[in-house]
């Protein structure tokens, strides 16, 4: 089983599989820690839309930090979003025009 050999943390959650794991090793260009860093960068970019931040914690959890400095540590990717809502005081709707346009702007060089 490929899914179990490439987990970042000890939580066997679908989102905890690295691309190396889900591709059966075909995505061999990046090591899991590098992948983790890229994912955290995207999470932080999305969190920034609500004035919050997301950081990696030991390669296994995420630190979600609101504008006031209040933080929560969560250990599964889907738990980042409710934590973000609590700390930012508002949800991030991935289908809203504002979120889509600001993400596009942030991807421009």
């Amino acid at each position: 089983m490929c899914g179990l050999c490439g987990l970042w943390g000890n939580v066997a959650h679908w989102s905890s599989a690295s691309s190396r794991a889900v591709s059966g090793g075909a995505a061999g260009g990046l090591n899991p820690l590098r992948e983790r860093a890229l994912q955290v960068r995207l999470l932080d970019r999305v969190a920034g839309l609500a004035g919050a931040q997301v950081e990696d914690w030991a390669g296994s959890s995420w630190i979600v930090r609101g504008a006031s400095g209040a933080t929560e540590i969560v250990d599964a990717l889907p738990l980042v979003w409710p934590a973000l809502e609590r700390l930012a005081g508002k949800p991030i709707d991935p289908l809203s025009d504002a979120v889509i346009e600001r993400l596009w702007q942030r991807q421009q060089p």
Partner: protein
Amino acid sequence: MSGVRDPRLPVLILSGFLGSGKTTLLRAALQRSDLRRTLVIVNEVADQGVDDRLLATSGEPVRLLGNGCLCCSADDGLGRSLLRIAEDEALLRSVDRIVIETSGLADPAPAFAALARAGRVSARMRLHAIVTLVDAMHAGAQAGESPEFALQLQAADQVLVSKLGLPGAAPLAAVRELVEGINPVAPVAAADAATLAALVHREGSSRADRIAADWLPAGPAQANAGHRIRLPGTPSRRHDGDVRSFCLEFDQGVDWNALSVWLSLMLHVHGNRLLRIKGFVAVEQGSAPVVIHCVRHVVHFPEHLADWPDERRTSYLVFIVRDLEPEQVLRSFLAFTGRPGARMAGGPAPAPHHHPTEAATA
């Protein structure tokens, strides 16, 4: 599919409303010699399940979960039962497949979730298909009166219609129209033992490949073809919302990290509207695909295939959504993944040789 055969036991979830004839159909199918080595897991509301006794007469091994309805408390019970089976090597060697018959009042999503969890269960078993049985005599009334009816249909990979031809039964075409208003992508067929047996044996019946074969244009995708949008067909409208289906198709590999961030946020905010997501995605250009399989909030642990199921080798995700705009889902996906090479295809029903009209090319 070429490549190494998946050694895990295929699991078929048989769903259907109370009285739709699940046990009768399953018992008839189990009489067939080609289904001899089937382990049936029955979830029954009563402690002494009538369904269990009926099935026991067929001589097949039966495990009874008699501790209540699946939709409320039996989720943990089913999970424990699957775990016990996964750890019973002698039992695993004695069967070739598992059929879970859910309670008639149950939402099949918890059964899917019990299979979807990574670990010992998913290491030994894999979802083969969710089949939902619909009663042609009572489907119209059930659709209006019970929310479980829609939940069972939304989860279905295949819908079978029972009691056709009986007095008061609706014709197959009418039931198909009703079903397509709730689940536009699941094929609808008359229920009989041979059809169910064929579903049990047909590899790929839970995959989105047949759907994509109906929807996506024939022939290989053009690399770097740009950004084509295929508008979905006329959405089906019911009292509980605007259910529609569409397909995102990708020329290039999709970044798994970006996909997981987008998918997790989509499920968090819009999980109740994302009724099904199924598809194959290459996470690295040129690699074999990863199977994505979601029932509402629940995501099956991603698994990679040894090879593509067909020569098209195109990544795609098929969506069934309620009250969501397909174009906006595509825009959101592109914004999160930064992939310019996605197209959207869709249609009201997977009719053979039907391809939706290409509406715009940019």
